């Protein structure tokens, strides 16, 4: 795992905000939830594939990986997590991230945001 990805995962897993006077942490899984958490909002972060590589002297000098962050929330605005996730992505990935899709699941009433990002390692 690239170090840049590991630090991003740690940062996403420690996202907190105050709600009704108590501090709540966003439940974030690396890769997938096999059993979804029974909460208002939760996230998934994964490293999806190798996006590019810079080769030289018969070795890969630098490799960049594409990954994604998914946020599922029962609240249309994302309950404040959207802003916190985008701030974290800017802090750890600079400008190499974008909102790939924003969907609504009718069966579960969940709003789904999907951001993609690139990290090097």
């Amino acid at each position: 795992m690239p170090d840049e990805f590991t630090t991003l995962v740690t940062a996403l897993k420690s996202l907190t905000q105050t709600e009704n006077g108590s501090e709540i942490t966003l439940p974030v899984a690396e890769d997938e939830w096999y059993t979804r958490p029974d909460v208002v909002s939760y996230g998934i972060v994964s490293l999806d594939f190798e996006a590019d590589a810079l080769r030289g002297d018969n070795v890969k000098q630098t490799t960049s990986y594409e990954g994604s962050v998914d946020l599922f929330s029962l609240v249309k605005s994302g309950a404040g997590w959207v802003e916190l996730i985008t701030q974290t992505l800017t802090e750890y990935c600079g400008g190499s991230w974008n909102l790939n899709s924003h969907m609504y699941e009718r069966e579960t009433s969940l709003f789904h945001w999907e951001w993609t990002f690139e990290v090097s390692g």
Partner: protein
Amino acid sequence: MAFELKADGLSEVSELLGKMEDRAPAVAGKALYDGAGIMAAELSKSAESIKTAPFKYAGNGNTRLPSPEEKEIVMAAGTGIAKFDKNGAEVNTSVGYRNAGYADLNGKKKPIPLIVNSINSGTSFMQKQPFVRKAANSGGKKSIEAMKKVIETEFEAMSKK
């Protein structure tokens, strides 16, 4: 995209530039067709790598992988190139699935684009497998190279006439 053209004298340069202006939409269309073909092939190839597991309802908060039937629907939908949208020398197209209709899944009609999107982006009950993004990433460079080659060949032939 940079390429080289040889001309003797200003009159020939002017003649060549005139020809290029006239031929640009046709050359762009030909190049785009080749490039889009590579992207469509990459998309088909990438869909083959979708991991599946026998279908089970994702109840009790469990998530699941796509079923072999869902993968089969995606594979059978077939990739294709949309009709070219020409605006002067600018030519645009899209690569996607040819069959954007409905498919039978467990006795119900389901929209094919929804199945593709669920597998690619994941849902709260299906584990994501970003095969479209992967295809766009791996096919992008090959596609650009192929288009560049067509443009170079076409303009080189033009300068020899």
